């Protein structure tokens, strides 16, 4: 297994569950790029990358995350990360990506962060 990507929807948020690794070896990173591009081209503006089962990432994987983050932000959208672990977390920290791209440990919390802050009527 290089990289498996499954896509879920929760409201208007598209969640990409990544399993395996995002490296240049046999096309994994380009596969991720393809999916992210397709989603943004289809008008999706809220993307959550679930990294909990991503075991490895290299510079090509980082480049794609950054590329999509920049692209979607320019279109007024949001890209967020969920549960990076181990070597993946190490690599993201090297580039201080977590200072720029919001990252969450809890999926419910991550999904909630996409919702516009509402105004609550007070009695």
């Amino acid at each position: 297994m290089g990289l498996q990507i499954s896509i879920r929807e929760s409201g208007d948020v598209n969640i990409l569950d990544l399993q395996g690794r995002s490296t240049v070896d046999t096309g994994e990173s380009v596969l991720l790029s393809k999916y992210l591009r397709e989603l943004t081209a289809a008008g999706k503006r809220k993307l959550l990358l679930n990294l909990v089962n991503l075991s490895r990432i290299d510079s090509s994987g980082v480049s794609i995350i950054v590329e999509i983050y920049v692209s979607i932000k320019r279109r007024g959208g949001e890209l967020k990360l969920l549960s990076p672990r181990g070597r993946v977390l190490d690599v993201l920290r090297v580039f201080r990506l977590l200072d720029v791209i919001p990252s969450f440990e809890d999926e419910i919390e991550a999904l909630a962060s996409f919702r516009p802050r509402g105004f609550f009527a007070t009695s």
Partner: protein
Amino acid sequence: MRLRLWRASGREVSLQRLDGYALNFWSRRRLAFLGGGVTPCGGASSVLSSDPLRTALVVDSGAEINGLLDGVFASENWSIQRAPDNCAALLTVAANSFDLIITGAKNQCRENLEVVHKIRAIRPHARLIILADKFTPGDVLDAMREGAFSYFSGPFEHSALVEMVREAMASPCWDDGIEVLSGTPAWVSLAARCDLGTANRLVQFLRGVKDPTIPEADREAVIAAFREILLNAMEHGGQFDPSHYVEISFIRASRAIALRVKDPGQGFSLDELRHAAINSPTGDVFSHLSVRDEKGLRPGGFGLLLAKKQVDDLIYNEKGNDVLLIKYLNPGASHLA
């Protein structure tokens, strides 16, 4: 709601479906994986032949590994012939040719190397993957010298094994990809062909060195750094041209690991790489992206910085086509700077 599931393996990525931007980025590395269209190797083992049915000989490795390999071969419509042991495998190989041979994981590497040596004498172009029950020093060097496609020792990382088997199945040519120029346990020098398949094989060989005196975190860091530098050398120095080779040295000192990668290119000046993250001001790793944007380059340029952060020293020569990575072995220290 689950919408789609897609597994990335070499053959399932459709380049035609990528837009020009991604194809332009990817095509050089992807074509490099395919051997760049140059097929210097000869013999009857080319998997690009018109013969639709390919056959693998697999020496019994126990139910778990056997089942894993069965699944890989079945998914690509390969037939499998199984041999109960190395002796039976040798007799079978003498009578029939195979597109891929995998030794038994129950044996010590030394036994497998002996049978690989004999198989190579009969079938010089056969692809051979060595599975060994456990790592012993010298295994990897000897496996490379015997011209093995790849080497794994237990405990096996299933995903890596599956990927390498797939790569062996897909690789159009391989057997002149890695040449051992000289080798001692402390210093190995190689020449490696500039294509992605060879890079992957080389990285797997390095992964195969499970030296218990090297902390796992340090080992992973060195492999990751080496991989980034190797791919840079093959892509930018060697243009992923399979007629070009990079020179590589691995040196194991008592308190450090050093890796040297020299590419055949014209070199570059690290200071002038304003479009690379390695030259971004501290604390602003994204500042190079604006330079890349001005130059019409996709966001990227993270490889050198990633490599640098995982070793203690990254030193280029004056020309910029020869780089030395040094990792000091300091148990307990963080592997990422």
